[in-house]
């Protein structure tokens, strides 16, 4: 609890920003949904033939899992506030359209008949009779939509739209519950608060109808403009940074200090970074040096000329007890040692990310070419589990290890791939929920072991020294054994669009710092 308050106090400025973005996303999308949803609902009552298609369509949108809906937005609209607002708008549509429709349908037919019989025009009946009578129901729909949107808006942090989800996802990546709470609690309070206020309004809707609709419109427009301007306004070079990199010791702060530069940050999910860079949403991105999209999107890796990033050699880590009991498994795993260099890994990643091949197929094809057995594919209950993080290569490696173990031992292997963040995967290993996963030496050093600075300096970013240090310390501290490196290095890397880098004459991170400090 104390931790939580300290965190809030230290980060209150950022928290306020996020809350502002969150409210902005919620209300901009809500406003659009109201403007489009109410007329849509009205039209559905007027033309019976389109009422079920319209209600059906908005209903189907609602059934798409919110995270998938955000995913569908990516290829169409890229990342940032725009796709988030579109997705939230689509979500808010159903309750508004449906309630408008049913609110008007529920107006007693005798009332509309007498209105018609007295000589009201269609528009007068709608304005003076149907909408006022349906307004409590319509407003209840708007209220539902608001609460839904506050919740779904947390997911928008995944596509770089900001909001309170940033803390939540950063917290998940770092296994930091205080941070998750710092995002979740304000989001929950926002939802409750809006629900309460709108509930009050709903009960007094007949009295408040006119002042409310004008007032709401003004507030919404104001909030919308403000928040949109904060999201869209900057025209400096911006850097996309994944949440995990923002918080870790060898992360973004250290990088800025090491190279002495300062640039505005857009926080976004690591897997969206490359598209964001390609689409120009950001100009620099923190990515992984082996990612297949570097090749596919024509991106440039800036040279780490002052050796800030430590070596990130990839090697499988296993539980010590498991390694001792299963020497045959270690043999099977070690067959992969030294076989994949960085270029090969980029190519394999690209085959999955860009050419849309299946990870297992890519893994199998590679092993087959190397002359390994790949025919056995067991489907029984798994006797051991291989873990993996969200990066593509972790998926490919996971499949490779599974194929090797199943083909060279009698074990049935299960996969737990795509876990979000180092802490989560590592804790799973410590708790014996998984027995093996591919880790990187640099991550082991800076995230898992966190030695003091003098120790890190003494290693001097030397690959072999780092491997030896990490392997020894892991064994002593955690009973975890590092097996032989696979052969490639996947360091963090600063990426730019090749064309822009060339235009600005940027080759190295020092060039970038110089450019920014001009």
């Amino acid at each position, binding site marked *: 609890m104390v931790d939580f308050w300290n965190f809030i106090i230290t980060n209150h400025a950022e928290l306020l920003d996020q809350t502002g973005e969150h409210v902005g996303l919620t209300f901009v999308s809500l406003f659009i949904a109201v403007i489009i949803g109410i007329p849509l609902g009205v039209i559905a009552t007027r033309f019976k033939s389109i009422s079920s298609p319209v209600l059906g369509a908005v209903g189907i949108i609602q059934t798409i899992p919110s995270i998938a809906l955000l995913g569908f937005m990516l290829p169409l609209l890229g990342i940032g506030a725009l796709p988030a607002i579109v997705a939230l708008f689509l979500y808010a549509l159903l309750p508004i359209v449906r309630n408008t429709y049913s609110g008007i349908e529920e107006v007693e037919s005798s009332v509309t008949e007498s*209105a018609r*019989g*007295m000589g*009201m025009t269609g528009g007068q009946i709608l304005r003076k009779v149907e909408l006022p*009578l349906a307004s409590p129901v319509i407003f209840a729909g708007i209220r539902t939509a608001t609460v839904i949107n506050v919740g779904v808006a947390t997911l928008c942090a995944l596509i770089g739209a900001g909001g309170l989800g940033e803390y939540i996802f950063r917290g998940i990546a770092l296994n930091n519950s205080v941070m998750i709470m710092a995002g979740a609690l304000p989001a929950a309070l926002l939802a409750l608060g809006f629900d309460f206020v709108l509930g009050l309004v709903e009960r007094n809707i007949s009295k408040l109808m006119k002042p409310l609709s004008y007032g709401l419109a003004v507030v919404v427009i104001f909030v919308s403009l403000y928040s949109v301007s904060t999201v869209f306004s900057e025209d400096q070079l911006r850097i996309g940074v994944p949440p995990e990199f923002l918080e870790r010791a060898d992360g973004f702060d250290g990088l800025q200090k090491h190279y002495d530069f300062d640039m505005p940050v857009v926080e976004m999910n690591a897997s969206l970074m490359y598209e964001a860079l390609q689409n120009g949403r950001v100009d620099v991105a923190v990515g992984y040096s082996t990612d297949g999209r570097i090749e596919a999107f024509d991106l440039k890796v800036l040279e780490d000329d002052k050796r800030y990033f430590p070596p990130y050699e990839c090697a499988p880590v296993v539980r010590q007890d498991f390694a001792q009991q299963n020497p045959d498994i270690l043999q099977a795993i070690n067959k992969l040692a030294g076989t994949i260099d960085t270029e090969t890994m980029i190519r394999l990643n690209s085959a999955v990310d860009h050419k849309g091949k299946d990870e297992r197929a890519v893994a199998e094809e590679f092993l087959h070419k190397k002359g390994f057995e790949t025919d056995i594919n067991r489907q029984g209950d798994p006797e051991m589990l291989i873990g993996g993080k969200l990066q593509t290569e972790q998926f490919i490696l996971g499949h490779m290890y599974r194929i090797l173990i199943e083909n060279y031992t009698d074990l049935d292997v299960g996969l737990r791939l795509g876990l979000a963040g180092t802490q989560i995967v590592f804790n799973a290993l410590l708790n014996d929920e998984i027995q093996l996963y591919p880790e990187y030496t640099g991550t082991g050093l800076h995230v898992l072991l966190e030695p003091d600075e003098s120790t890190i300096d003494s290693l001097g970013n030397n690959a072999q020294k780092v491997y030896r240090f990490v392997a020894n310390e892991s064994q002593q501290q955690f009973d975890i054994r590092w097996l032989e490196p696979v052969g490639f290095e996947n360091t963090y890397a600063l990426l730019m669009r090749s064309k822009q880098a060339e235009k600005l004459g940027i080759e190295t991170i020092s060039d970038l710092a110089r450019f920014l400090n001009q």
Partner: protein
Amino acid sequence: MIRLQNVTKTFNSDTTAVDNISFHVKEGETFGLVGTSGCGKTTTLKMINRLIEPTSGTITINGNSITSQEPQKLRRNIGYVIQDVGLFPHYTIEQNISTVPKLLEWNERRVQSRSEELLEMVGLSPEIFSERFPESLSGGQQQRVGLARALAADPSIILMDEPFGALDPITKRQIRTEVSKLFKQIKKTIVLVTHDIFEAFEMCDRLCLLDEGKMQQIGTPKELLFHPASDFVDSFLASNRFQLELLSITISNILKLKENSELYWSPPSEKDQQDDIQADQSLYEILEEMEQRNHENVAIIHRIDGRVADSLSFSDLLNRFQSYKKDLKIGGEDG
């Protein structure tokens, strides 16, 4: 005033709701459309204010086709009262009544004074009711407001669709009597749809009996009773014949009234009731009142120029009624 010529309405091209109907509603009369449910009476009514458009045939009001103006404009000049009243629940009583005047853009003061006048007219106190909402009114009060709303812009025609259908028998009777009186005062042309034959006989000058969309007979209640055009008309009225006969025959029919005839009850009432009898009161009303006044000892006195010409007991009335009926059937004419 309202003339329908060969009006037909088919729904979905196979159901004929109204089949080749023609009639003429005269100015100031109350015209009933009567029949069982599904006979086409409501459809016929709704074609007059264009809530339903006829498939073929023409409808004119004062010689002008109703299609010669916008339906909304037409409707603003025709009062419309329906069974479920259809008051606007979010409007006060006053706002409800003022709906049409406001559509016609009357000025604020005129709208308000009209609304008060109408509430008085339908027997509701404006001080009590103006600012209330429909939900706080009883069914009977709501129907009174509905009536006031229909009369608001002083239309010369009022269409009524089962206006008393949803009311309990006592309220129904009471409102019906009041409304009949009111209509006689304000001289409106009224088209009334009802399935209640007593209501029709009590309120209407002439009736049109419909069956399965076809016109069976048009005429005064008496014509339908004593000169039915078909077996259908006869059988439609058969089960309530006696009561309907009493309703359709007035006291003046069975007495030979002169210009200076006076009719009154004897002995005079002990309460503050009026003791004189109107010549156009139906025998039904007379007998009912006689019953209330204890018929054993009550008589109707008919005076001409102050001299007693007749004194009728309960059984005298019934005898005269019987012989009048006999004359009617033989003579083939109605009073």
